């Protein structure tokens, strides 16, 4: 026999050490940095305390239009000159938005970091926001969203979100808005939002070789001309569960697959069950080896993949499952998925599965220690959720020590198969009758 039959055990575990974190108050803002000695690349990320949650209802997508408009010229130079200046350094301004925060960042060889941060600050703090440019960017963003919404997924996501959280609330509408909400924005919406939120200092996050980086100089550039305090965050939002499952059919005529989005509300990020919930979600749907993917992909071949997880922001959270399944098996795929969620809620997890889930989540923390980008992202988590410097080391310990009883209890408490909303974006004519005959829930008109 040429193969070795015995599976090798692990070698001696390497210690987990999150890089040293430096926190400093400079020039009215906060700096949070991680030292990565010898690293040639660096990341600087300006984190502003304004997320999609601060956009007024009816103005969804405002931050996205503003983010694009930042690069349409600044107090110092026009759009083409700005693009050439940034890209001439070898970087690009990268922006991102979630429910709690807005970020603008650059990834660049460390010797050019300070020039890049100056340009980043120039765009964020002193954009020209010429009305004609803002209108053009708005129209382009509306078009870009129409392009995106022609793909399967966004319409189903929006339908699920509205049903879970209520379309009368900002958090019941798409995080990045929809084509209509963006098309309806006017110039003043954008300029007012900028002056209200983008001139507060925020936090500068830096990951790189701090021996080659002058944090004070970066901070002075990032916080120049800013003022005002952090936003009022508001407490967790109580979101009621529905009684009884609901089915929403979003028509996509001729679709060869049905796009599935199943979900219900779940606790906010600071909930004490965060770790056991994460692990329960991992066993059910968070990894390739999880129950849902095993059943629907590896046993039935209904799909290329299916995922489910709990996700949480400061004020609210949701449990959701997403997949694309062949049109002809839409109904049986839903029955299997709901069945697996129901079994997990009722019977909990096994030690065998939990061992994989906890090792995977904990091990990923080690694997993610490599790149400046990943470290900057970890620092962002610390800032957004007010977590201590040793959070990731502590998280690792709590993942590894979570037991079957705790994780099963989290599944029992936080999974609500009877309150799921099932959104199916697919060929309604081909699947409606099958869906009605499943008795999975009430098909909404």
């Amino acid at each position, binding site marked *: 026999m*040429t*193969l*070795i*039959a015995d*599976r*090798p055990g*692990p*070698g*001696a*575990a*390497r*210690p987990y050490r999150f890089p040293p974190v430096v926190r400093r108050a400079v020039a009215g803002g906060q700096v949070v940095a991680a030292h*990565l000695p010898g*690293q*040639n*690349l660096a990341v600087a990320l300006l984190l502003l305390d304004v997320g999609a949650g601060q956009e007024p209802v009816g103005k969804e997508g405002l931050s996205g239009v503003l983010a694009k408009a930042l690069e349409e010229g600044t107090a110092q130079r026009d*759009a*083409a000159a700005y*693009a*050439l200046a940034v*890209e*001439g*350094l*070898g*970087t*690009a301004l990268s922006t991102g938005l979630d429910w709690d925060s807005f970020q603008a960042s650059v*990834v*660049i*060889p460390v*010797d050019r970091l300070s020039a890049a941060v100056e340009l980043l600050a120039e765009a964020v703090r002193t954009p020209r926001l010429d009305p004609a440019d803002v209108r053009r960017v708005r*129209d382009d963003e509306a078009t*870009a969203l129409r*392009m995106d919404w*022609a*793909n*399967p997924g966004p319409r189903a996501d929006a339908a699920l979100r509205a049903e879970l959280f209520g379309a009368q609330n900002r958090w019941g509408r798409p995080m990045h808005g929809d084509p209509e909400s963006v098309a309806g924005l006017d110039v003043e919406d954008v300029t007012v939002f900028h002056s209200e939120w983008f001139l507060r200092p925020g936090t500068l996050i830096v990951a790189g070789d701090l021996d080659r980086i002058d944090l004070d100089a970066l901070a002075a550039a990032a916080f120049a001309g800013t003022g005002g305090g952090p936003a009022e965050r508001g407490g967790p939002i109580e979101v009621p569960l529905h009684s009884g499952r609901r089915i929403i059919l979003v028509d996509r005529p*001729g679709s*060869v*697959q049905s796009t599935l989005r199943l979900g219900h509300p779940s606790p906010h990020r600071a909930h004490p069950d965060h770790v056991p919930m994460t692990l329960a979600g991992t066993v059910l749907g968070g990894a*390739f*080896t999880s129950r849902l993917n*095993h059943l629907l992909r*590896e046993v039935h*071949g209904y799909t*290329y993949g299916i995922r489910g997880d709990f996700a949480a922001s400061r004020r609210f959270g949701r449990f959701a499952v997403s997949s*694309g*399944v*062949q049109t002809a098996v839409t109904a049986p795929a839903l029955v299997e998925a709901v069945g697996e969620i129901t079994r997990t809620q009722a019977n909990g997890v096994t030690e065998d599965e939990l*061992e*994989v889930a906890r*090792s995977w989540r904990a*091990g990923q*923390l*080690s*694997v993610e*220690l*490599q*790149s*400046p*980008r990943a470290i900057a992202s970890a620092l962002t988590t610390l800032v957004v959720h007010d977590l201590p410097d040793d959070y990731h080391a502590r998280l690792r310990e709590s993942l590894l020590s979570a037991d079957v009883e705790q994780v099963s209890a989290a599944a029992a408490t936080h999974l609500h198969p009877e309150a799921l909303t099932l959104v199916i974006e697919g060929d309604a004519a081909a699947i409606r009758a099958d869906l009605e005959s499943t008795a999975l829930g009430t098909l909404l008109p």
Partner: protein
Amino acid sequence: MPDSGYPWPIQTSRLDNGLRVVVSEDRTAPAVAVNLWYDVGSRHEPAGQTGFAHLFEHLMFEGSVNVAKTEHMKLIQGSGGSLNATTNPDRTNYFETVPAEHLELALWLEADRMGGLVPALTQETLDNQRDVVKNERRQRYENVPYGDAWLRLLPLLYPPGHPYHHATIGSMADLNAADLATFQAFHQTYYAPNNAVLTVVGDATASDVFALADKYFGALPARDDIPPAPGGRNVPATGQTAVESVSADVPAPRVYIAHRSYPFGSPGYNVITVLATVLGSGRGSRLYQRLADGERIAQPDLVGAYGVDLAHAPAPLIATATARPGVSAERLAEGLADVVDELATVPVTAAELDRAKALLSTGWWRQLSTVDGRADLLGRYATQFGDPARIADQLPALLAVTAEQIAEAAADVLATDRVTLTYLPEETS
């Protein structure tokens, strides 16, 4: 900035059975990347067997002599690792990044499926993964607007019988016809140690890796009659342009212009890489400045140009733009062609060249910022050019490209055999 494009150590070894082993030690993070490049891809597939190399990649996760079905994933994820595999026309690669103490497990798993897949392969597994791959095809190519552009471009760029003529995902008809014996033979033919490169990057020493590689892979037999893929390095120009227009359920007109350029790894392809960056990467690129910002006929997020890194024949160079509302496909196609053609007539300025090189340089370091990024590139250079150390020359070669070389390459590549693919929104009732 370091002078070399690869300021980490590279050590290599070759086992008696021909398996090449590449190690690049880096103790920064307690993680290690394991990457296997097999020198087999969809270019090896005969007519009637399109999609087989990729479907086979799926089967490699479904168990082997000492590993039960789905256990591979479970063991890697249960060690805290992440894993995947990809197939393209050139090659198939399998990779995992694990906390360093699980290196030996990863090597054991890879050796077991290199040497012991066939006895574990069942009809049931094949039928299951055939369904999974058909769903992958639906999800990635059939159910998304413009999703089949690549499937349409390849046969326009490469003649029938050329190894790049068909797409890696294959046809539904061929996938339906796939039988078990073909896959057993496929493994026996191509999954031999002398047809693979094992690369390990990260928290491990070369001597340990060489010893472990010998322990787990050393007894696997070499195969001395691995058939080469059909030739195709030279594709004679036809002097013909190819134009295809598709009416489909798409939200706006889109145009692709494509040419065959030079094989990845050749000096000419380095020039094409810089050329594509000047043409289509970023807001300072010609396409953005001219079509998105200047004439405002293209959507700003959807202009771009890129080479596809294929090494065994002249690689595709593709430029694309999507129309702003109210702009016709004809006007867009004309505008796109004008900007592409000007590469041969309007010299690239020093500022354009510097911008492109700065972007490529940062992109290079970003790719190398992770152990898995490094492992994949080392495996590529070892597999395709016989020497992983060639990786260090890549960035300097890009940075040495001149404006004159770009003009020459543009005149050579863009002058003939243009492929234009246009998507038009179909009339809806």
